C-alpha cells in the first residue's frame, strides 16, 4: 500500500465516519425501534440532555478522578514491584506467576473479593482500577530496567556521574522511558476498563453508573449517549501518552 499523508488519512476517517453514521441513521429509521437501535439524532438529543442537566459533567468528573488516582497508585506500585523484580532473580521467579495470573484474569472476576475485603467506597474502586492496570506497568518497569545500558552507564561514570541514584535517573530510567511509557499506555487502556467495572459492578457511580442505570431503564439512546464519552475518554488518555512517547522517543 502507498503511504498516505496526514491530510489524506484525516479525509479517509471523516468519509468513513459519515458513511457509518448515515448507514446507522437509515437502519435505525427503517427498523423504527428506539429500544433496540436508537437513531443517531436520538442519541445526540439524549447527549444534549445529559449535558444540559449537568449529569454527564458530574459523572465524567467522578470517573476521571477515579481513573487518575487509580493510575497514579498503579504507577507507584508498578515501579516498586518492577524495580524489585528487575533487581532480584528470586523476586522475579517468586512473583512472576501471580502477576501473570492477575494479568490474565478478567478484573470483573475479582470484584466480589474487593467488595468483601475493601468495601464499595472510593478505596475499593481504586483497587479495582489498580488490579486492572498495575501489571503492564510492573512488567514494563522490570524489562526496561533489566536491559541494563551498560555502555552508557560507563560513559556517564567516566564523565563524572557518581552514585547509584544519579545513574538510575540520568541513564537507566531515561533509557527505559520508551518501554515504560508503552507500559503506561497499555495500563491506561486497561485502567479505563477497570474504572467502568468498578462503577458498574462495585457501586453505581460515574460514567459506568450512568450506562448501567439507563440500561436497566431500557433507555438505549441514553446508554449510547453515555458510552460515547467513555470511549472518547479512553481514546484521549491513550493518545496523550502516545504523543508523549513520540516526543521522548529518539528514532
Amino acid at each position, binding site marked *: 500500500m502507498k503511504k498516505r499523508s496526514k491530510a489524506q488519512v484525516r479525509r479517509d476517517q471523516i468519509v468513513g465516519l459519515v458513511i457509518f453514521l448515515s448507514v446507522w441513521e437509515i437502519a435505525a429509521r427503517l427498523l423504527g425501534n428506539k429500544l433496540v437501535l436508537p437513531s443517531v439524532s436520538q442519541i445526540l438529543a439524549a447527549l444534549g440532555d445529559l449535558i444540559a442537566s449537568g449529569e454527564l459533567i458530574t459523572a465524567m468528573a467522578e470517573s476521571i478522578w477515579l481513573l487518575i488516582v487509580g493510575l497514579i497508585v498503579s504507577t507507584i506500585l508498578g515501579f516498586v514491584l518492577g524495580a524489585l523484580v528487575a533487581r532480584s532473580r528470586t523476586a522475579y521467579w517468586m512473583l512472576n506467576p501471580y502477576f501473570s495470573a492477575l494479568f490474565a484474569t478478567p478484573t470483573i472476576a475479582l470484584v466480589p473479593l474487593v467488595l468483601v475485603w475493601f468495601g464499595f467506597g472510593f478505596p475499593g474502586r481504586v483497587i479495582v482500577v489498580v488490579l486492572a492496570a498495575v501489571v503492564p506497568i510492573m512488567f514494563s518497569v522490570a524489562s526496561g530496567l533489566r536491559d541494563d545500558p551498560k*555502555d*552508557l552507564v*560507563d*560513559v*556517564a*561514570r*567516566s*564523565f*563524572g*556521574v*557518581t552514585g547509584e541514584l544519579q545513574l538510575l535517573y*540520568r*541513564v537507566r530510567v*531515561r*533509557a527505559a*522511558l520508551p518501554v515504560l511509557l508503552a507500559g503506561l499506555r497499555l495500563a491506561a487502556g486497561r485502567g479505563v476498563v477497570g474504572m467502568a467495572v468498578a462503577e458498574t459492578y462495585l457501586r453505581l457511580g460515574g460514567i459506568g453508573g450512568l450506562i448501567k442505570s439507563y440500561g436497566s431503564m431500557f433507555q438505549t439512546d441514553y446508554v449510547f449517549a453515555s458510552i460515547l464519552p467513555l470511549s472518547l475518554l479512553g481514546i484521549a488518555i491513550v493518545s496523550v501518552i502516545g504523543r508523549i512517547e513520540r516526543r*521522548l522517543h*529518539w*528514532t
Partner: protein
Amino acid sequence: MKDSDVEVPAIQLRGVRKTFRLSEDRNAKTVLALDGIDLTIRKGEFLTIIGPSGCGKTTLLRIMASLEQHDEGEVIVEGEPVSEPGIRRAMVFQTFGLFPWKTVIDNVTFPLTVRKFPADEARNTAMKHIRRVGLERFVDAYPHQLSGGMQQRVGLARALSTGADILLMDEPFGAIDAQTRELMQEELLRIWDEERKTVIFITHDLDEAVLLADRVLLMSRGPGRVRELIDVDLPHPRFEYDVRGHENFAKVRGHIWQQLRNDLVQQREEEAS
C-alpha cells in the same frame, strides 16, 4: 631533555594486576587479564596500544580511566593515585557512547553539565569543539541521524570540551569505514599537534598504530603483559604528508608484525590442540 626529567608523568602504572571472576559465585572460574603492568606515559605523548584480541587492552584503558578497579599495584595520574574517574581524563569509546536521546549539543555539554558548569559557559565550550570537528550544522541532530564517522566526531568533541589533558581512546575508529578513518586520523593528529594532549589510543590496525604514535605499546596475549615499547622515529607533523612512504615506517611496522604474528600463530596452534 632536562625539563622532562623533572616533569611528572601523565600516567604511571606500577605492578597493575587484574583478575576477572566469571560470575558472582565465589568459587567461579577466574581470568587473569593483566599480569603486572609497569608503564610510564609521558605528558603530551601519543601512545598507541596494540596486541592480540583478548590480551587486556580495554581492561588496561578502563583501569587508567578508573572505570575498572585493579586488584594490585598503583595507578598514578599526574602524580596522584586515583580510584575514581576524574576531569583530567576523558574517554572516547569504540561504539561512540552517545546518549541516543540527546542531541549533539546536549551530548557534548553532558560532562560539563554533570560537573555543574554554568549553562552558557558549557554551551560555548561545546560549540567551539563542535565547530572544530566540523559539525556546526548538526548541533540539534540526534546521533541516529549521523554517520558513524560523524558520531565519533561528536565523541571526540565531547572528550575535548571537558578540557581533559589525557585522552583515553579505545579503538575509536574501529567501527568507521576505511576512508573516513584516514580523514579522522588526520584530524586527530592535527588536534594533537595543536594541543599536545596526552593520548592513549588502542587499535588493532598496525598501520594506524605506527602512523599516530610517538611510542607503540605492544602487549602479549593473555595474561596481558607489556611485551615491548617501540619508539616511532618519524617526523611530525604527520598530517601534511604521508609518512607511510618513510623507510622507518616500514621498519617499525615490520618489527611489530613479526612479534604480533608469533603470538597469533601460537594462539592458533593452542586453539587447534
